[in-house]
């Protein structure tokens, strides 16, 4: 068990695309335990991806179960994850362990379908939405060398939410 060093912007290693995991062995499971320790050591992170600790393999952890009134699959270790279906979009504010003291608005799909392997190599299909779906999309970006800062939209964009329009046109 160990807390690993988190690499931070502008470290070029955050831009590298991660490789698929091929060996589902004890070493992998030990790394996942360290990755989880690292996630928990930081400031309330709901997810973490292997490249954030400079291991360029397609491994991520997401756990939004600590958030009140949120449907979720609990603690998820996702290996070689692939999003197979996207639906809807919404804006939400994100921050990142690799980008201290900055938050920004990002557009993500509202609902996703996901295929991923577990630490033993078995394949699972997940359907998720809202905060959990956002967390998975944020972490999965890390595997493709993307940070949320690459996707930040204008704060002003949020003024034009459909909900505001409907209220505005109601008078």
């Amino acid at each position: 068990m160990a807390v690993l060093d988190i690499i931070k912007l502008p470290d070029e290693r955050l831009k590298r695309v991660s490789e698929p995991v091929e060996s589902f062995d004890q070493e992998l499971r030990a790394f996942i335990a360290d990755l989880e320790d690292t996630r928990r050591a930081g400031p309330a992170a709901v997810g973490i991806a292997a490249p954030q600790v400079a291991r360029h393999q397609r491994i991520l952890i997401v756990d939004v179960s600590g958030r009140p009134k949120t449907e979720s699959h609990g603690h998820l270790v996702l290996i070689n994850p692939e999003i197979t279906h996207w639906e809807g979009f919404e804006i939400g504010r994100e921050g990142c362990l690799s980008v201290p003291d900055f938050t920004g608005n990002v557009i993500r799909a509202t609902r996703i379908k996901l295929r991923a392997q577990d630490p033993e190599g078995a394949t699972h299909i997940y359907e998720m939405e809202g905060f959990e779906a956002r967390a998975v999309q944020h972490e999965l970006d890390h595997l493709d060398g993307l940070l949320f800062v690459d996707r930040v939209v204008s704060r002003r964009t949020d003024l034009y939410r459909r909900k505001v329009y409907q209220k505005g046109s109601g008078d």
Partner: protein
Amino acid sequence: MSDWTMLTLVGADRPGIVARVTRALYGAGCNLGEASMIRLGGNFTIMLMVGGGLSCEQLQNALDPVARELGLRLHLDPVRGGLHQHLVPNIQVRVAGADRAGIVADVTEILADQGFNILELESDVAGDAAKPVYIMNIQGYCEQTMESLEKALSGLAAKGISADVAPVEILIG
């Protein structure tokens, strides 16, 4: 002693203002901090933290040629830096209503009474000249509950103002 200067700048909008102003500052040996730059109506506006140890007078001299050429008015104030200590908003208030004088004062007075600290406020006048609509988005920090804020703002509906309170939930990943 302050090592930052707040540059406030306004002028008729046109392409190239940011490039010319920041090039002049770089040429004078300045370093830039946080900024807000936006078109308001037909005007381009800049609020920009400028570092690098130059006095307001030296900055004024460095910017004078480009200000004259592009018709920009500017103002300089020494300020404290205060970087790397972002306050994180926890509440967002979206306001919309037929445009009339007093909407901002009505809404923000209620928020101030609730101890709401505004971190960002952006507003637009939408619609058209005959039927303008005022739209405002406020993000800030408040220790009161959502219910308390909603109750405090509920009286605005009678004045034709819709105010929607929502938590700002930040995903850290």
